[in-house]
């Protein structure tokens, strides 16, 4: 009995740990998208073992620094539970048209519905008892497996996504709570939605505190 209890303790993630997993997932997602969609040349990426896969992460100093800057702020927001969506938009450099939009919806289980105080959701204390959907206990391995299958799907999605002509750039958007602290590098933006885009829902994963859904929308070829 006590041994079992002990075991469940070790596998239970605090909100902090959960935020870390989600933030890490974002970082690898951004790298994977940049690689898979050819935003940067393939030679600029190196393979890293992660989630039981060979993940490709950029080894270009500038790109690395750029992503690092995004991630450092994202980590803060994640810990505060301020984020509801992360979006990676791929834009055609010539026309400025948004051609692809990868959206990661974050649900925090501790977060109350809008009618109640939204600020309280940041409290670690409130997170567990207030949980609207009590998350089933998951081992770290199960979470890793869920993330792994998302990345497999992202990788596989290049087969149905339209060809990009290579001359593309990307932007990172975040849907944050109105009361979040916003550093100077971040500014309000429109949603950069894709006009008449096709949408494909990919897999999700969840931790004890977060659930992340993945959605890709893309412009249909004429």
């Amino acid at each position, binding site marked *: 009995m006590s041994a079992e209890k002990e075991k469940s303790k070790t596998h239970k993630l605090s909100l902090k740990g959960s935020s870390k997993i989600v933030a890490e997932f974002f970082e690898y997602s951004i790298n994977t998208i940049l690689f898979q969609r050819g935003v*940067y*040349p393939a030679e600029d990426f190196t393979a890293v073992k992660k989630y039981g896969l060979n993940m490709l992460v950029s080894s270009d100093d500038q790109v690395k620094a750029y992503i690092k800057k995004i991630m450092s702020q994202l980590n803060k927001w994640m810990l505060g539970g301020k984020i509801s969506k992360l979006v990676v938009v791929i834009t055609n450099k010539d026309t400025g048209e948004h051609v692809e939009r990868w959206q990661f919806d974050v649900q925090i289980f501790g977060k109350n519905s809008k009618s109640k105080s939204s600020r309280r959701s940041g409290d670690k204390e409130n997170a567990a008892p207030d949980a609207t959907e009590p998350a089933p206990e998951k081992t770290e391995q199960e979470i890793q497996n869920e993330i792994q299958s998302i990345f497999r799907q992202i990788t596989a999605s290049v087969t149905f996504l339209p060809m990009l002509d290579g001359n593309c750039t990307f932007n990172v958007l975040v849907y944050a709570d109105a009361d979040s602290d916003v550093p100077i590098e971040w500014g309000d933006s429109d949603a950069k939605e894709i006009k008449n885009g096709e949408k494909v829902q990919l897999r999700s994963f969840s931790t004890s505190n977060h659930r992340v859904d993945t959605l890709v929308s893309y412009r249909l070829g004429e």
Partner: protein
Amino acid sequence: MATVDVCTPTKGRLFTTKTAGGRMPLTPSPKTSNYQPTPPSIHSTPTFAQALSRSGVRKSAKSNIARDSPRRLELGLSDWTLTGTGTPSKPRSTQAGVSTATQSSRPRPKSSVRIAYNAADRFIPNRSASEAISNAGTAKLDTTTPKRRPRSAQDGSAVLSSSAATAGLSLNDRTADDEDDDKNYSKPSPNTVAYESSIANACGVSLNTRILAFKPAPPESSKPIDLRSQYNRPLKPANALSAQLRRRILTSPERVLDAPNIVDDYYLNLLDWSCNNQVAIGLGQSVYVWSADSGTVSPLIEDIPETYISSLKWSGDGAYVSVGLGSGEVQIWDVEEGTKLRSMFGHDSRVSAMSWNKHTLTTGSRTGALHSHDVRIAQHHTNTLTAHTGEVCGLEWRQDGAQLASGGNDNLVCIWDSRALNTPKFQKTNHNAAVKALAWCPWQLNLLATGGGSHDRHIHFWNSTSGARVNSIDTGSQVTSLRWSTQYKELASTSGFPDNSISIWSYPSLVKNIEIPAHESRVLHSCLSPDGQTLATAAADESLKFWKVFEKKAGSGSSSAAAGVSKKVDGMAAARTIR
């Protein structure tokens, strides 16, 4: 009847219908469904107060007393910070005002009600319809952003304070009043809020979240990408270096030594590095040899009388140093023994450039004359090469000894064939200033790079077989020396004013890989270590610096370098200054 209405002030729907009748243009109609019941904390009293107030209005309707009285209230209650009477318009018809007021007073939120309670005994404030409207707006706001709530209380009080005066307002006047309130409390007018939220609802966006974009532009991709080739790319990229293997050039000196009394003269050649890993430098009237292996300095020539060192060069085997003097004399020294082997005369002015080709030493003087010496025989003077009319400051034999390049103060570059030294094979006049910097390419024998002085600033590349100029770079400053890398397809140039820098150029792309600000004044001389990794520069700021600009990649062991690489590194660590 009035009391009944007041008792249920919280019914939003009721409020809407009421207001819809009288003041359509103002009401935020789509929003009122959101209207949240305010806690009816002190219900009974307000009704009483309101009843009182309404009766009072009639008396004090047009009076200015009403406006004064809230001020007094403020004094009593510290939390009523806002007066906000604004510009209440003068009450008009009292009778009409009363009737509208009775209507509008019903849906009053608790905040203002509380004030009425306090104020009731002083004067009888009549809430104009305008308050009701503005309060309706704030109350709605409250539901979304709870922290605003205290504000609305103040709001209410302010409105209240003005209310007596505005008792009998027409609709238009109330609008004005509303806007005034907005200004004072810097809060979105009910109209704006209603508009925003209705738009937000329509778009399915929550007002609680903002979309933030990371504003800095992402870095440019280093080359255009064709995804097609990426999907079936070879396992190992054929030519492109991956980013982590890309070459980084060290930009700080590995070691700095003092070079006191170095003559600040562009035309001299006072620094050379032997294949035995020894650096010889001419400082004024002395020559010192610094051993890179051991880090020790030994004086070779000290205080030569009545003249100065104008050039020096190691022989190919690294055993001897030839030294040119200001008097025109050329001496050959055995470094290990520290003895002079011989003196060779022939030049009648200073010898500013020299170059070895096996046993042949070619020297150039200020007059422009070039002499070839066979150092093994007594009659050493074997050839005189005449072409230059100005001081010869650059002289370089090709590695295989088949050709000789010379540059002079007459802006001329000459390429000589060793089999026919009487006349130059090519004479090039493209430079507009003295040519001191000359370098033969180690991997392409017939490629010669030449750099011009401060009026010219160009590096030209020549095919020494055809004599054609194959490339040019405008460096932007005086080119004082040129060195080809033996490891990379690169060329290092040193420069004078304005940057006093070392630049590394890729060849043949001619892209400047890096520019290192090297010295405080112009770089006079440079030489490469025998292993080709380190560039030594001597400058007029009396320092000798060592730069590992062509550092070899670990693992890419092309052992073209001379012996003693590892020994040299140890020696560097243990080295000390020249003084």
